[in-house]
């Protein structure tokens, strides 16, 4: 490296945490107040909590849609819903739960936790972080605006052509979905870039890759997965939109189109997606279980390896969603075999969790209950997954309620149970207050029994041949009892979720004070006050082991983790960038200040998509240019670095 002029270098001052340091950092890091501050904030903690709340609202919307469908299906020949309304509800239920709840909620936890777990002050790209949130919110609003337009997506979340083509679906229903998904893809992509670079470059000095919490591995792995997979679905929806609006021939059978092309592009993304919405939750459980078992996770390296392997294998098996489409035998064999192989890394994780409980001394608190039941759901989902990966079984089970049961054990069992474990576990860090333990346990049993009562009978409904996506069924098929059980279960579960919400409200306003480390957990986020100050760490921690707060009892480190003395980095909004593998200090980075540009860019970009939806080419042109201009000002460079050594503030 050539010698840099002095104004471009700085020697981080090493010092202890003092009241003066905290006061000066608070002054530097505090954002603006009022509406400007609210719309312009780039604080990852605020954005993470917003992400979680927004995703939870979508969970409730998707849940209400499911309840209406369950009333309709409680008995044979019900007439609460028309077939078209039923189509719209199951489409929106799938879209909401899969795209607007399952990934965003995990992103929310990750955005809140990444810098705290890594020992740094914010994400790699704080403004991009704000942009991801706003785009996620607006894409959700965009898709839900279809209710106002009376044109709700109605071809299922998988949206197969030819039914989703213009000939069969002439309204704007599918266009809302197609354009909304492209918008959401932008949010997911920017979010993934942020996670990946944050993980690689912002780990505290000494936090080498083998000392990084499992949850971060999960999110980073799926971020790479997103970068590889999301373009497939954005392209699939873009081509569909072209087919519908400009008469191209990608998916129709006329003029050389291929409906199966949609299925390839869609599942090339939507199969990896299954892992994308569960791996961070698996990581959360891998970090939560050891805390309540009072010992480190068994087989840390194997669990991390299993996480990465699962994602890689996830890309090789998309065709197992297409066994019933008449594809060649060789293809069937390969994709069936490849799907079986995924059981190996999954089993590695399961055995690691079971072993952690087995050799630990479990403390049974609500997060532990959710984590432990998560393992049971994971196993049931895995076993029914093996059944559907087998071609002869799948040809029988295809498009029956059995597949629905499997899908819900995967998504609700692994994602929602992991998320609820994480919610109870990190709630004290987010709010500074504890949730009520007794109410938490009661809510858990409602969710647990409700969930199993809902989805276990679905296996039998499916084995008895009930097809999915039908709005009603005749009497005398033998499906009545299991459907009734499912409906009752869904309401029990919904009541459990309601109790969780009450628990959250109660904890937020009346919970008892948590203190920095209420669970006696080993990772860095518990070394700071709850809720964390705006600058996170007053001095940059220097990490010497995988469990910085448990070093005394484990004695596993090569040195002593330093938490109360270290680089102060107080000459402006600064954080340390470290090397990718060994986390050695590389450079001092400037952290972006609050900005309204990400919000404005989201507004104009959403407007651009709305103009495309309504075929307003001039408005689209103007809004597109405005979006680019927002990017232009957002990235406006400063000739002088604002934070030169010695000056106190930006």
């Amino acid at each position, binding site marked *: 490296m050539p010698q840099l002029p002095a104004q471009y270098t700085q*020697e981080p001052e090493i010092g202890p945490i003092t009241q003066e340091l905290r006061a000066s950092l608070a002054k530097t890091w505090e954002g603006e107040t009022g509406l400007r501050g609210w719309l312009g904030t780039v604080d990852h903690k605020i954005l993470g909590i917003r992400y979680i709340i927004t995703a939870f609202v979508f969970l409730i919307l998707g849940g209400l849609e499911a309840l209406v469908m369950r009333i309709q299906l409680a008995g044979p020949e019900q007439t609460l819903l028309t077939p078209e309304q039923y189509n719209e509800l199951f489409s929106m239920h799938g879209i909401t739960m899969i795209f607007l709840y399952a990934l965003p909620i995990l992103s929310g936890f990750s955005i809140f936790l990444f810098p705290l777990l890594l020992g740094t002050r914010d994400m790699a790209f704080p403004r991009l972080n704000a942009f991801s949130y706003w785009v996620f919110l607006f894409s959700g609003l965009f898709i839900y605006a279809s209710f106002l337009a009376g044109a709700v997506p109605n071809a299922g979340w998988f949206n197969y052509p030819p039914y989703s083509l213009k000939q069969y679906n002439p309204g704007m229903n599918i266009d809302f979905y197609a354009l909304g998904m492209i918008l959401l893809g932008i949010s997911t992509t920017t979010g993934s870039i942020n996670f990946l670079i944050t993980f690689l470059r912002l780990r505290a000095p000494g936090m080498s890759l083998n000392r990084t919490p499992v949850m971060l591995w999960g999110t980073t792995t799926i971020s790479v997965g997103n970068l*590889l997979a999301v373009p497939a679905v954005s392209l699939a929806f873009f081509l569909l939109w072209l087919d519908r609006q400009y008469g191209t021939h990608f998916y129709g059978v006329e003029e*050389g189109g291929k409906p199966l092309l949609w299925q390839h592009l869609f599942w090339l993304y939507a199969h990896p997606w299954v892992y994308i919405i569960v791996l961070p939750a698996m990581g959360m459980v891998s970090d939560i279980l050891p805390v309540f078992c009072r010992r480190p996770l068994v087989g840390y390296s194997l669990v991390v390896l299993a996480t990465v392997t699962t994602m890689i294998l996830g890309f090789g098996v998309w065709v197992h969603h297409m066994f019933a489409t008449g594809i060649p035998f060789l293809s069937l064999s390969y994709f069936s075999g490849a799907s079986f192989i995924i059981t190996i890394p999954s089993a590695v994780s399961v055995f690691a969790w079971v072993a952690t409980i087995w050799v630990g001394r479990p403390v049974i608190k609500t997060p532990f209950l959710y984590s432990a039941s998560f393992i049971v759901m994971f196993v049931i989902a895995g076993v029914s997954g093996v059944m559907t990966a087998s071609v002869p079984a799948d040809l029988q089970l295809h498009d029956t309620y059995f597949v629905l049961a499997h899908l819900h054990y995967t998504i609700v069992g692994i994602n929602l149970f992991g998320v609820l474990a994480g919610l109870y576990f990190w709630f004290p860090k987010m709010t500074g207050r504890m949730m009520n333990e007794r109410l938490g346990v009661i809510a858990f049993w409602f969710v647990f029994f409700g969930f199993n009562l809902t989805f276990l009978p679905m296996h039998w409904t499916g084995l008895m041949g009930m097809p999915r996506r039908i709005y009603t069924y005749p009497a005398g098929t033998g499906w009545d009892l299991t459907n009734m059980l499912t409906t009752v279960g869904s309401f029990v579960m919904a009541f459990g979720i309601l109790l969780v919400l009450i628990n959250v409200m109660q904890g937020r306003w009346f919970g008892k004070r948590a203190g920095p480390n209420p669970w006696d957990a080993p990772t860095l986020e518990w070394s700071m006050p709850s809720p964390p100050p705006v600058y996170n760490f007053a001095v940059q921690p220097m990490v010497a082991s995988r469990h910085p707060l448990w070093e005394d009892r484990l004695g596993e480190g090569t*040195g002593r983790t330093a938490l109360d003395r270290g680089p102060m980095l107080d000459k402006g909004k600064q954080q340390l960038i470290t090397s990718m593998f060994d986390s050695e200090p590389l450079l001092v980075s400037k952290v972006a200040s609050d900005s309204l540009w990400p919000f404005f860019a989201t507004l104009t970009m959403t407007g651009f998509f709305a103009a495309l939806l309504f075929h307003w080419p001039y408005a689209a042109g103007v809004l597109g240019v405005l979006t680019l201009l927002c990017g232009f000002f957002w990235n406006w*460079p400063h000739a002088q670095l604002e934070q030169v050594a010695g000056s106190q503030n930006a």
Partner: protein
Amino acid sequence: MPETTHEIPDEQRDISFGRLPLGSTDARGNGWFGMAALVVTEACLFAYLLFSYYYMAFHFGRDWLPDELPGFKFSVPMTALLFTSSAVVWIGERGIQKGRNWICVAGLSGGALLGIAFVALEAVEWADKDFTLSTDSYASLYFTVTGFHMAHVVGGVLMLLTMALWAALGKFDAHRRDPISIAAFYWHFVDAVWIAVFTTIYVTPHLFN
């Protein structure tokens, strides 16, 4: 700069990180890695586009292609334009590294102009075709694949022009020039993708003729 290791000593009294670069100066900042990640995902987008093309091609075979296969009359000059532009942008990037602002401005705007010429030439080729977007699935794919690439060229041109403007305004110097390297990186990527597009659309049809 003293050597540091990831093993933190028991006693932190004397620890020092030495003088570190501040912000994204000569050492690569986060922005360059962010762009690398964006390039990965954009490369995947093109992989899926070309997958769609080959998927159709393998299903329908020779009959799928139009009677008049896409020729080299425009595509070879277009390729030459892009290759030249990459070299010109590289010269511009070298210019700022040596602190010669005007070479940088000239290189970046020169690259952008070559990019604009590329888009113009492609538009002429589009007009030259006797089929349209909605003729058949080949036509749809032809216009979508080349159109996606063209959109990326336009994006790159806008980036280069922005950087040229900022460089002309004196925003960068020999040590603080990360945004220029990032924009140049994207531009080279757009050119590299053209090789895949060129091979797919213009070369492979002749191989099976």
